[in-house]
């Protein structure tokens, strides 16, 4: 479990060298997009049309900030629940997105897509919104302004703290870590 400083966009080598549990500090451009923007992305990809922003080799941050107060670069911001983007992530990785930042575990199709298309799922701490906004140096709405808090934003970040939760080698940090601390004998069926 290494400590890694990375410049975005990511290269294939960056991706291959990352492993579940690595603590990563991102520097450079990342893009903010969530549910409503992803729905539009998929409609465009289905029609073989270009996305409003070139996201190839880039990282998407699943988030929606609060409005900035006067003098602030951005309001509070932290990742939203990543699994809501599960229906979109495999197609986005196939298109060329190299990493996504969210919170919480994801489905098998996303884990497989990380392996198939050499991409990374990062987690940032959900709700750590005041602290994380201080890692952002600039923020600009670059597309889908009509979506308000769900618009696509380009951020420039400095030492933005994330963790690799699913790597391109099939490792799953959630499973690994939960297994260490689970002490219940009872087998609980999923609802």
């Amino acid at each position, binding site marked *: 479990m290494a400590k890694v400083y990375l410049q975005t966009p990511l290269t294939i080598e960056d991706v291959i060298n990352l492993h579940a549990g690595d603590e990563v500090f991102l520097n450079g451009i990342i893009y903010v997009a969530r549910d409503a923007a992803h729905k539009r992305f998929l409609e465009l990809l289905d029609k073989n049309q270009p996305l409003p922003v070139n996201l190839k080799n880039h990282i998407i941050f699943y988030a929606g900030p609060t*409005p900035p107060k006067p003098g602030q670069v951005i309001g509070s911001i932290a990742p939203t629940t990543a699994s809501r983007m599960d229906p979109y992530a495999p197609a986005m990785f196939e298109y060329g997105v190299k990493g996504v930042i969210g919170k919480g575990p994801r489905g098998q199709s996303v884990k497989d897509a990380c392996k198939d298309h050499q991409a990374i799922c990062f987690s940032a701490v*959900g709700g*750590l919104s005041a602290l994380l906004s201080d890692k952002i140096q600039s923020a600009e709405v670059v597309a889908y302004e009509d979506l308000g808090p769900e618009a696509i934003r380009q951020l420039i970040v400095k030492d933005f703290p994330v963790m690799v939760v699913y790597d391109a080698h099939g490792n799953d940090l959630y499973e690994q870590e939960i297994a260490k601390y689970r002490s*219940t004998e009872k087998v*609980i069926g999923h609802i």
Partner: protein
Amino acid sequence: MRKISVEQIRDAVSVLCWEACYYLPDDIVNGFHKALETEQSPLGKSILEQLIENANLAAKEDRPYCHDTGLTVVYAEVGQEVHIEGGDFEAAIHEGIRKGYKEGYLRNSVVGDPLLRINTNDNTPGVIHTRIVPGDKIKLTVLPKGGGSENMSAMKFLLPGEGVAGVKKFVLDTIEAAGGRACPPIVVGVGVGGTFDKVTEIAKEAVLREIGVHHHEPHIAQLEKELLEEINKLGIGPQGLGGTNTALWVAAETYGCHITALPVAVNIQCHAARKKSYVL
């Protein structure tokens, strides 16, 4: 009869909205400190430390603790000796939300039509629960409810014979299925009894109870204690990245129910467990 104007109600709701979002309640921050003492996972400890730092920073600089400033749930306990004057009571609450979210720089997280999904850009409508109570005051409580944890909440009708074991299994299954998606460490509100609507209402009211305070009925307090222990054995931990503190607290509320039924509801509250009250 004591007179309270709709402007007073609007202004109180407005201030409660941003105060709730900036200043995490003491019982929750104390809960983080307590969890830190027992947490076994180094990563879990680090996350808890960051949450404490985030709460301190947000409070110090008057900024939202979490970017998801929620759908605004407002509880109004209206004294029956109060005369509300100057306009429409519910409209005043919605107007207070509108004002509070704008003036407090909070995120507008509400779409007007659930299928057309156009943001209302003022965080209305809120959800209002009104009770008429004895007295000549109005108590207003604002609960900004984030989407991530609310989405993982669940309700089920059990068979009456399934009893305590059935309730526990349903709660544990719900927490297990939610995992890191609900933004643990969580507060778990459990409702048992009532009807389809009542059981979810009391599960959400349970979330408002100060953590550290058990139900007054010993057998329900026992259920809360056992559930907390069993949830924390699941290993989910802070942010679902493993650990021994998945839940900070479990609060259960009960209500009488039909002889055929044992309804149970689980309302999950993420670590941004915000709540703020004011009495007019």
